[in-house]
């Protein structure tokens, strides 16, 4: 009981700090290329962390599992396949187990949950097992990032977090799960720094 109160408080603090549009965006060009690259490196650490990458999988539509007692990431148990719908509509809907709730506090090994419908990210957003160069190219390509420029990416993070979606959950995953590195606020800021620096990629 006490634990759930603490976690809820943390979530609402994150939400408050991240009111949409709360971050004052740096001027485009005001951030050096080196600082932009450093920001990308931190973004890469976040998006390839299991809390994020396990559901950003490729066209086999099979989510991954990992955690303190699982070791290496492995395909989700129970023969789970989210289908091309990425929500499990063709087989077992993700939401059969991953219910929608703003309370992230689940038991270890129970089904994690967040405030919007549980699902895989669109297949174009494939991060699992991808390199820095591949992920960087995807993140800045409007054809594969939901039609967003860098400001759009920042807004997307803020908006998703305001709904207690996966972006908020990644840093408060409950159930002894390892959270994504650093904080949600730092990640949003890094996205803005990388953008204002012209979205430099490791290979260019």
């Amino acid at each position, binding site marked *: *009981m006490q634990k*759930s109160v603490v976690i809820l408080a943390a979530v609402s603090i994150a939400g408050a700090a991240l009111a949409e549009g709360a971050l004052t965006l740096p001027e485009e060009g005001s951030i050096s290329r080196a600082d932009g690259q450093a920001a990308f490196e931190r973004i890469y650490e976040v998006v390839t962390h299991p809390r994020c990458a396990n559901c950003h999988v490729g066209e086999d539509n099979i989510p991954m599992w990992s955690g303190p007692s699982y070791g290496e990431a492995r395909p989700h148990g*129970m*023969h*789970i*396949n989210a289908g091309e719908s990425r929500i499990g*509509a*063709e*087989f*077992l*809907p993700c*939401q*059969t*187990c*991953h*219910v*929608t*709730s*703003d*309370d992230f506090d*689940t*038991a270890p*090994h*129970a*089904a994690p*949950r967040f405030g919007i419908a549980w699902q895989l990210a669109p297949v174009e957003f494939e991060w699992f097992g991808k390199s820095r160069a591949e992920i960087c190219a995807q993140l800045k390509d409007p054809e594969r990032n939901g039609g967003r420029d860098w400001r759009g990416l920042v807004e997307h993070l803020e908006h998703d977090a305001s709904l207690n979606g996966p972006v908020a959950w990644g840093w408060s995953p409950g159930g002894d799960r390892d959270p994504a590195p650093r904080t949600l606020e730092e990640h949003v800021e890094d996205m803005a720094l990388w953008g204002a620096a012209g979205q430099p990629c490791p290979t260019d």
Partner: protein
Amino acid sequence: MKLTVNGTEHEVDVEPEMPLLWVLRDELNIKGPKYGCGIAQCGACTVHVDGMAVRSCQLPVGDLEGGVTTIEGLGTPERLHAVQAAWVAHQVAQCGYCQSGQIMQAAALLDLNPEPSDAEIDAVMSGNLCRCGTYPRIRAAIHDAAQKLSEA
């Protein structure tokens, strides 16, 4: 708080964090849904919420949106649901513990996919554990129920 189960509205005085399964079994004395694991690993607690299969051990009752159907409301002894009739015809149950969840999951599967292949049945039903290993009969009964529903 109010909730509707099998078409009947109930008023319960519980914490919103209480899982739906606890509310059904301990507050409303609806014992069809079973407790197997409490962590979405077995499927014994499966019910429908507005027709979709949901592991009731995972859903905080405060987050419930929609009407709940348990196996008690799926069919009646006089008028079995096609899945229940097929389960009887194929004598699917062994110890029976998992079967309320299996039947609710199978009924939800046929709602989304009226003509499932063996592979699709396996993909969906793998989330419902049966320690007695009744899977071959589950599969046969689902095909049978699909057939009956398509004729209805």
